[in-house]
């Protein structure tokens, strides 16, 4: 593998890692703060992609489609939290798994009713067409760089939101001691609803910006959900920093696995997971 190929694959891996991070950070936040294991998280990613495809048909502009889509997804996330998830806080994981599994069945079926089972593609915006010429016949598309850049901004925003704002302080307080925070007069239920909608929006956003690269198809949510679980388990459940490191490890392992070991491509990430768990069963940044 020459250096240019290596560089292109590394950039691809990082870009995939960033998309994974947006999904996994929501998953890990929802678990860490609300104690909810949300299987429907992948469905939000899928809905994000489908809504983008649908809105781009009306607006013709990716940015507007994403902005409108995010509003829709925040509302959807909020409604699901109020109507279903909020009844589960005192129940055990088993019921959470079952109920959110039911949600997946419903959301997947609604997707089929509205959009059918065809594959769709979302056009890359004109401004970002083309790529950087690296050698005579290899180039790196601008749009993939754009994805990494946007995700980096979102990740930085998330970091600032959680570590520097008052809302972030309440979120962290709610995560470390729910009863105490409530006793201090903070509306924990309200915070939970916000965190859940935020997580849903992050997953959907990942599906939205990724849609021109990955195309839009049924079952895309299931795929990303399982990989996000791997990311969260590697990083340590509840840790956003862990989700970031885990997402990068898996993004790179998956990309280089596909190039170097094509026959075992999809097994590589799980082998990586097994090795890391042998070393640290609670994940890289998890509390024992």
């Amino acid at each position, binding site marked *: 593998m020459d250096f240019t190929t290596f560089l292109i694959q590394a950039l691809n891996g990082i870009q995939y890692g960033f998309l994974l991070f947006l999904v996994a950070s929501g998953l890990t936040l929802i678990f860490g703060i609300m104690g909810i294991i949300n299987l429907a998280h992948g469905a939000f990613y899928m809905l994000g992609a489908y809504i983008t495809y649908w809105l781009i048909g009306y607006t013709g502009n990716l940015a507007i489609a994403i902005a409108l889509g995010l509003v829709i997804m925040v509302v959807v996330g909020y409604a699901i939290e109020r109507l279903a998830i909020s009844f589960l806080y005192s129940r055990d994981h*088993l019921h959470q798994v*079952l109920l959110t599994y*039911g*949600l997946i069945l419903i959301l997947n*079926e609604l997707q089929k009713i509205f959009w059918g089972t065809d594959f769709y593609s979302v056009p890359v915006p004109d401004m970002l067409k083309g790529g950087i010429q690296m050698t005579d016949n290899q180039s790196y598309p601008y749009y993939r760089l754009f994805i990494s850049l946007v995700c980096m901004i979102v990740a930085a925003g998330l970091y600032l939101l959680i570590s520097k704002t008052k809302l972030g302080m309440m979120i962290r307080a709610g995560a470390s001691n729910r009863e105490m925070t409530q006793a201090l007069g903070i509306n924990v239920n309200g915070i939970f609803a916000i965190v859940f909608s935020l997580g849903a929006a992050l997953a959907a956003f990942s599906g939205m910006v990724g849609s021109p690269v990955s195309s839009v198809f049924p079952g895309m949510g299931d795929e990303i959900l399982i990989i996000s*679980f*791997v990311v969260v388990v590697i990083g340590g459940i509840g840790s956003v920093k862990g989700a970031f490191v885990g997402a990068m490890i898996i993004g790179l392992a998956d990309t280089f696995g596909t190039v170097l070991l094509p026959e075992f491509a999809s*097994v590589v990430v*799980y082998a990586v997971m097994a090795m890391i768990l042998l070393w640290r069963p609670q994940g890289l940044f998890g509390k024992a």
Partner: protein
Amino acid sequence: MMNRDIFIRAFTLVFIGVLAIGPMLFESYYKELVMHMMVLGIFAMSLDLLIGFTGLVSFGHAAFFGVAGYLLAIVTPEAEPISIFISLPFCLGGAALAALVIGWFSVRTSGIYFIMITLAFAQMLFYYFNENQDLGGSDGIFIFNKPLFGWGETKLLDLDNPDVLYYLIFASLIGTYLLLRTILNAPFGKVIKGIKANEHRTQALGFNTQRYKLVAFVLAGTLAGFAGYLEAITTGIVSPGHLHWHHSGEVMMLVILGGMGTLFGPVLGAFALELLRDNFQDMTQHWHLYQGIFIILIVLLLPNGIASLANLFGKKQEVPVEEAATEKEEQKS
């Protein structure tokens, strides 16, 4: 108080009685459906050993179901049948080995980690079979010959006869039930129930809980492989869908909806849900939509499963003080 016991006993007797004379009652379509339900019942009971009795929420149970089926496909020659006395131990051994490896990693963790890790390992196996073109890739692989119940030229039972196969599966269902009941009443069963109620306390009593959990995991995986083996014989095809995490989710649903922590509940769940599916699928293309709504309603309204409806016929019998204490613990955790 006694009404409940009488109701359960009467219901069980009628249930087993109807199954026993099944081939005379059902047309061939329903006979196949009932065979499928009984296989699912075995599968669900095996998962209940983990979820309901040991407290291990495994989300990758379909892996063992599928592995045993694929092993049967691999070991069956195209031209002639293979003896069940060779293929069954081979397939169950393979499922047990897979469960041993996955379990060895998984039982070191607990709670949500356990759920996610079992899920991830099962997906790894799913992708392996899904992408292995020698095994038919995503289309799956046919098993051309049902195993020979006998050896060499001797044929004890003719498995190509649907009625014979029906009774083999029926006997397997009853056999699995009795086996699990014996195990659960044995000292081993007391220990794993103790692990579910309070692992630290069980540890403090001097039991190596990791080892007990691993044994339970392997046992459950082997029984799931048994169900997968029977399914492969019945349908004559194995596909990666058998290992897909939706399949794990579905069997978990059977266990919880039926009523976990009982052996009868999961079987009941398997029958109830398959009947529902069969009826709904005729009426609508969007069965999954109704299935999803049904699951959510059950979780919200009937958290202890369908089997808890038996409580309508009176409360559960009074249990001795110690057991009541453990039960309270269970409810708390």
